[in-house]
């Protein structure tokens, strides 16, 4: 491609996990993709567009990967994209504080024949540590453009794109190779020649890279050569090759090459104890780590509840006034639908917006500061002893926000057994959608202890998750979890823009859900509560929520299942509709109690069917019972099996029933049962 015929340029963003690829992606494309300060935030490739000068750039953000060996699913996504889609330029985002390891991926990208441009990030942290990098010399030595960027501030993004366009339009492309020593090079040449014989295959795959991978025993590449002309001979060579030794030798040679470059352009400063190091001494301390983690999470939930309560009251007053106004002024059934159905139902969900925003604000602060990665680290030992992989804690933590991305985040777990266990237990981490249920019930029945009750529920979710994992490990998925290796990102002051964007995006999603799924759900509940079989045996409008209504019929059909828990048919209906989205539990109760004007809290408090023990049981049931529809679909997608999906639904609902039953009985025993 020459400069005068610039058209679409396909750019792939690659790099190690947690080096800031998504930050650069957002800076280039203006997107608002979620950015986190821990590895594994991007598990699927994301596409964005940008016009730069005459060029139309299509930018693809790939999941982070340390190498192209394809040990985990996210590595496979990255590797396959580069091989199959052949992007015009690969921008490798390189962390300046860890040049040696980041350049290891560079050697592999170059071996793949990709045109690479390096975006150097975290230079400020490297500088703080006393490192110095001669960027010009580095670029010269590896014959690749290197641009120092500060994407959060948008610094040098234009220069980076200039280099991308220049690299894409450069006519000649110099293939860089690392020499692996005489003996190994002979083998590589032999395999290359065998691959060359199959012309269609040779056109699809970079020969040298494929030969190296075959000698390393890469299963994916071995599958690709199935049926090719040289397959038999290659397999014979593979039989005689000690893969692990070859892999180690190749890695050594790559690092030798990297050292040779870095010794000329990189000077490591005297290692001073940085603030980040200091914090790690304490936060990852054997004795203090877990209590500090619990204290911080407690503070996050207390703020969510305590600071949210008065704001919630303000919205509640507004919703109540609006519902009253509508019911008084809009005549007939339509006013009833609007006031008690829509405003009562959707309003019962919308009033929790402050709590939702606060919860996500707290999670964003913990994540952005780099603390979440430490949380995974300090919990690793405990997780391992319970049969879970240390990396599993990250999906569990993400599950506090929403279980859909959390289940998807299990893709970063290499071992299939570890991954399946994590998928099955992740929905036990209480997602934001369940929070309104806790707030209304804990707030109504537990007064000033509400914050502690909510914290206890979140803790119970994690306890059930880890105990279930232990059970699965010793029955369904026997074996030991794979060892856990995770790089600790440096602590950093959370960027206000990133924190507020993440908080607002989640709040907006919540409001969107309230205006769509929840609105539809409460209208359906209202219709079911308003219509039924009249005493004359005809179908028509009946007493709202009365014995003849359809909701009563559905609820009463399910009631025997819930009766031992002390739940009446109204709760049964709310729980059934909660499968669509957990917020609908509250929306449905709002509709069924006609809570538009007086407020759901007051309506529940005056219902004799409710008492603190039943409320506790209901909260435990909502915490643990089957995940919502979107999560079920994600579990099906990620496990690829209806069997495991059905198991997840049945297991979680069974556990929810048992523990809710226990909670109600304990509640009665300690005297809060009425």
């Amino acid at each position: 491609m020459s400069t005068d015929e610039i058209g679409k340029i396909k750019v792939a963003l690659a790099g190690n996990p947690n080096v800031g690829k998504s930050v650069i992606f957002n800076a280039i494309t203006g997107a608002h993709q979620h950015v986190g300060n821990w590895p594994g935030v991007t598990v699927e490739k994301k596409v964005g567009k940008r016009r730069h000068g005459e060029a139309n750039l299509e930018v693809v953000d790939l999941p982070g990967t340390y190498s192209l060996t394809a040990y985990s699913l996210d590595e496979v996504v990255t590797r396959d994209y580069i091989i199959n889609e052949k992007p015009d330029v690969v921008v490798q985002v390189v962390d300046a504080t860890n040049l040696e390891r980041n350049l290891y991926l560079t050697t592999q990208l170059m071996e793949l024949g990709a045109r690479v441009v390096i975006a150097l990030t975290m230079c400020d942290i490297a500088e703080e540590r006393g490192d110095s990098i001669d960027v010009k010399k580095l670029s010269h030595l590896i014959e690749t453009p290197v641009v120092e960027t500060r994407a959060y501030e948008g610094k040098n993004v234009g220069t980076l794109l200039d280099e991308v366009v220049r690299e894409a339009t450069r006519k000649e492309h110099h293939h860089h190779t690392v020499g692996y020593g005489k003996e190994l090079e002979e083998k590589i040449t032999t395999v290359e020649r065998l691959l060359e014989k199959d012309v269609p295959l040779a056109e699809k795959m970079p020969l040298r890279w494929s030969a190296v991978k075959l000698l390393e025993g890469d299963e994916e590449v071995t599958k690709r050569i199935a049926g090719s002309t040289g397959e038999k001979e290659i397999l014979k060579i593979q039989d005689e090759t000690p893969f692990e030794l070859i892999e180690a030798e190749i890695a050594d040679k790559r690092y030798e090459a990297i050292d040779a470059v870095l010794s000329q352009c990189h000077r490591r400063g005297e290692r001073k104890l940085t603030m980040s190091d200091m914090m790690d001494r304490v936060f990852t301390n054997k004795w203090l780590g877990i209590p500090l983690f619990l204290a911080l999470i407690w503070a996050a939930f207390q703020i969510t509840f305590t600071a949210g309560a008065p704001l919630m009251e303000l919205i509640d007053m507004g919703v109540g006034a609006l519902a009253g106004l509508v019911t008084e002024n809009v005549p007939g059934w339509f006013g009833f639908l609007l006031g008690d159905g829509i405003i009562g139902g959707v309003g019962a969900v919308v009033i929790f917006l402050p709590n939702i925003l606060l919860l996500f604000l707290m999670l964003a602060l913990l994540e952005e500061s780099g603390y979440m990665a430490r949380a995974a680290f300090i919990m690793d030992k405990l997780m391992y002893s319970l049969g879970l992989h240390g990396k599993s804690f990250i999906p569990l933590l993400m599950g506090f926000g929403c279980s859909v991305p959390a289940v998807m985040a299990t893709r970063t777990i290499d071992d299939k057994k570890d991954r399946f266990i994590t998928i099955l237990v992740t929905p036990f981490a209480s997602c934001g959608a369940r929070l309104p249920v806790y707030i209304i019930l804990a707030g109504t029945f537990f007064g000033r202890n509400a914050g502690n009750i909510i914290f206890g529920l979140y803790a119970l979710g994690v306890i059930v998750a880890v105990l279930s994992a232990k059970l699965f490990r010793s029955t369904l998925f026997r074996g030991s979890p794979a060892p856990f290796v995770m790089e600790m990102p440096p602590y950093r002051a959370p960027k206000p823009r990133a924190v507020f964007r993440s908080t607002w995006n989640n709040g907006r999603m919540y409001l969107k859900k309230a205006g769509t799924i929840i609105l539809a759900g409460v209208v359906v509940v209202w219709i079911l509560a308003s219509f039924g079989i009249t005493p004359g045996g005809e179908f028509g409008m009946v007493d709202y929520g009365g014995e003849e209504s359809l909701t009563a019929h559905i609820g009463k059909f399910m009631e025997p299942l819930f009766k031992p828990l002390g739940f009446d048919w109204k709760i049964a209906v709310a729980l059934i509709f909660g499968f669509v989205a957990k917020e609908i539990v509250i929306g449905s109760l709002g509709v069924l109690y006609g809570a538009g004007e007086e407020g759901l809290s007051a309506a529940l408090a005056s219902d004799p069917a409710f008492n603190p023990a039943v409320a506790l049981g209901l909260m435990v049931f909502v915490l643990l019972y089957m995940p919502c529809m979107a999560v079920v679909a994600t579990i099906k997608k990620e496990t690829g099996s209806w069997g495991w999906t059905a198991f997840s639904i049945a297991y979680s609902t069974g556990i929810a029933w048992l523990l809710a039953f226990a909670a109600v009985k304990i509640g009665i025993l300690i005297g809060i049962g009425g």
Partner: protein
Amino acid sequence: MDEKRLRCMVLFGLLMAEMYLTFGLLQVVFGITGRGILLIPGDIVGGAILALIGSVFLAGVAVWLGPRGEDAGAYVHVGAWLGVIFCLVRFVFLAANALAFGLGMEDFGEWRITDDMVPMLYLALFPLAAMLRWRTKSRKEMRGNDKEDEKVNRGQDDTGVSTREESK
């Protein structure tokens, strides 16, 4: 960090450990017995967190007495940060409770500002003051180091070793 400064930090850590642990344990005991006094109300969780912060300071003192004494500063630093962070959390509670009182919410009819004047809030004045002092000192030191670096860099320029500044 020079030995004198480290010793000062450890002394401060010891003082803070005593205060946070004492107030924390008092709050836990008051919380269990259902009693409390003005400015030290009973609160089991709040007291446990104060005791935890006190333990971080105390760990700093213990580290100082051990073979890796130079790490003690890290614990005192982080202990001070924790004190300030939890003070902010408590301040948010106070503001929210005041708003709830202002709105006339049910549970807050008898709320008084002294109800929320808890040790987590006022004890943090000490770590806050210490952090401000350390910050001023570090800045002064950094300015001094910059001058040193400049001298060294000038020397390096003569020998031709390149730095990142040059490559820009």
